[in-house]
């Protein structure tokens, strides 16, 4: 493991960040996040005590597990029966386009890395911070799907942690940031489920044969007083699948 500390860790973290932004497959994306988390932990062990840096792996691992469980819940037979383009995760851009964007970001990275100076930050850390920050922001710009966007946000925060923990070494701060990361992961996992459980977009669902085409606009409701839907706006957290709070 100690062989990885230094340049290999930066390169692997960079590759992990690319895996979060470019591929569509959620398993590859989660693998990329796990890679970034472990490498960040190795890098952080250079500036803060190893036991504090280990918290990064623990927090990242918990986030990865939560996201894995959310993703697994979305792999229902009904969902898998949909055309691939309509399966979760639905992307707002093509993989080729995202790959091209990352390529352009790499050119930008090479162009500006020498001119960027951060206080008390070594050149190795500077490269890691710049690349992870770039990838995080690019992921936030390219993705509206919570899994990719959420992990991009956590990647950006990872870059920020490299700066913050280099400058400030306080146990309380490490604990607060890592705890916050777990809570962010929880919110992201919830949003992944909520987004993934969206009903199939209208017009894309296969029309059952023999049925008359749907009339335009809203169908008139039956006569008499319409029952008031007492739970229309009611938060019930049913996407968690458990007891509604």
């Amino acid at each position, binding site marked *: 493991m100690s062989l990885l500390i230094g340049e290999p860790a930066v390169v692997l973290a960079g590759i992990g960040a690319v895996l979060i932004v470019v591929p569509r497959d959620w398993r590859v994306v989660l693998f990329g996040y796990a890679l970034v988390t472990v490498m960040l932990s190795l890098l952080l062990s250079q500036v803060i005590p190893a036991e504090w840096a280990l918290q990064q792996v623990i927090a990242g691992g918990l986030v990865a597990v939560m996201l894995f469980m959310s993703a697994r819940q979305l792999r229902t037979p009904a969902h898998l029966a949909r055309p691939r383009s309509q399966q979760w995760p639905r992307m707002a851009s093509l993989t080729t386009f995202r790959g091209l964007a990352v390529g352009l970001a790499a050119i930008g990275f090479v162009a500006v890395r020498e001119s960027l100076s951060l*206080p008390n930050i070594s050149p190795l850390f500077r490269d890691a911070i710049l690349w992870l920050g770039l990838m995080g922001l690019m992921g*936030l710009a390219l993705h*509206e799907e*919570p899994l990719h*966007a959420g992990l991009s*946000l956590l990647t*950006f*925060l990872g870059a*920020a*942690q490299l*700066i*913050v923990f280099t*400058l*400030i070494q*306080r*146990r*309380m*701060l490490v604990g*607060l*940031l890592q705890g*916050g990361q777990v*809570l*962010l992961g*929880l*919110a992201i996992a*919830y*949003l992944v*489920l*909520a*987004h*993934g*459980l*969206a*009903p199939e977009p209208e017009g894309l669902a296969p029309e059952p044969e023999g049925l008359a085409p749907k009339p335009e606009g*809203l169908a*008139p*409701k*039956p*006569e*008499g*007083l*319409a029952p*008031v839907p*007492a*739970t*229309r*706006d*009611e*938060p*019930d*957290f*049913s*996407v968690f699948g458990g007891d*509604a*709070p």
Partner: protein
Amino acid sequence: MIAGPVLLLGLLLVAAVALYVLRRFESLAAILASGLSAVIAVALWRLPLTVPTILAGRPVHLGRPFTWEDISLQVSPASRALLVFLFATAAVTFILAWRTYQGRTFYPFGMLLLAIWGAVVMLQPLTYTPMAIVLAAVLSVFLIQAGKPGETHGAWRQLLYPTLAVPLFLIASWYIDQAPLNPDDQDPYRIAGWLLIAGFVLLLQPAPLHVAFPAVASQAPPVVAAFLWTGGQSVTLFLLQRFLVTYPWLSEAVDSASWLLWLGVLTAVLAGALTSTQRRLGRMVGYAALYDYGILIVALGLRGTAGLPTAIWLLLTRTFSLLTMATGAAAVRHYMASDQFDHIRGAASRLPWAVIALIAGGFGMAGLPLTAQLSSRWALLQLVAENDRRWALLLILGAFGVLIGVVRAGQACFGELKFSPVERAPRALTLIAFLLVAAGVLLGLFPQLLTGPVAAVILPLSILEP
């Protein structure tokens, strides 16, 4: 001796757990949540900060700090004023939420939100406070999404910007610590100033970072959205004020007053224009609230002897208008087929007081006569005109945009029912809508009723301690 912050936060956490258990008995949960919030508001206002008092046989010292490693929590005179405002608003909001069907999980989650906002208000060091704001944003995700599958924009945007702001504050704290080591070098102050301003722009989310507003408005239950805006924005603006008082060099390093004025005017004008073009009730309410928020930022940017009292006055009156408008919108949205203007025709015949509340709240947002906002808005416009008349004109143009949007929404509620027959609003909802409208009109006619509360808040804010 029990320290004030421990008692307050502990009580709120216990209440949140109890309300979560009781969530299926919504009436009971709403009344308990509202009652407890009201009791805490009164207790905070009445109990002395400097001397211990006996509560339930135990000595309690409200002003005593609670310290844990690097962080400490303390109820100061200024933070007490904001806490009283937050709890009083919550007491009203819980009742409104109960009668407008905003969801039964709102009560426990609302209590947790109050605990987090309370922690933000009491927390030291200041540079750690954005982390607590992120915690509040994480909790807001569950309230905004409200268990509905599908669109997640509102919840995601609510979470994104505060999270991005946290590193900026932490790096700024390092520069602030470095600055005294070399007093001749002003660079650390300048860099810290820019980092803090950038962080506050992300926390305040003025235009063009306002994207969370319409998304939250269209996705979240309206009264819940109004609660999130009222509480979240007042806490963030209070935090900004604490930063400006604690770090006096901040105003000089980056001319924060000028930034706030520009951002506030831009937000108000853009929001006013966008309010007039909306075709959905939720988004219209969102943009009207954004316009009002822009006005509040302008008031804080004015600073000086009159700027701060006007900002506090605006904060109080906008809460009335916002809650009135949100209650009307929530009732219409609940009983009609959807909140699209095309689908709410006939709402006025079945839900007359809800529609009146919607229109009266909207008029309040625009600052029209006979509404709570009139006097505070006029005071602000006079102050702005003293600086630059063009800015005042731009703010009035924004108000016209809000007015057009509200008139269009009100107009859409009239006529014959377009879709299914709709149940009449229950009496309790009618009574609540009537009371809100009447309170707004009363404050519009007698604005001096708020002189006492505003004066009570200004004094502690003027001696705000780091």
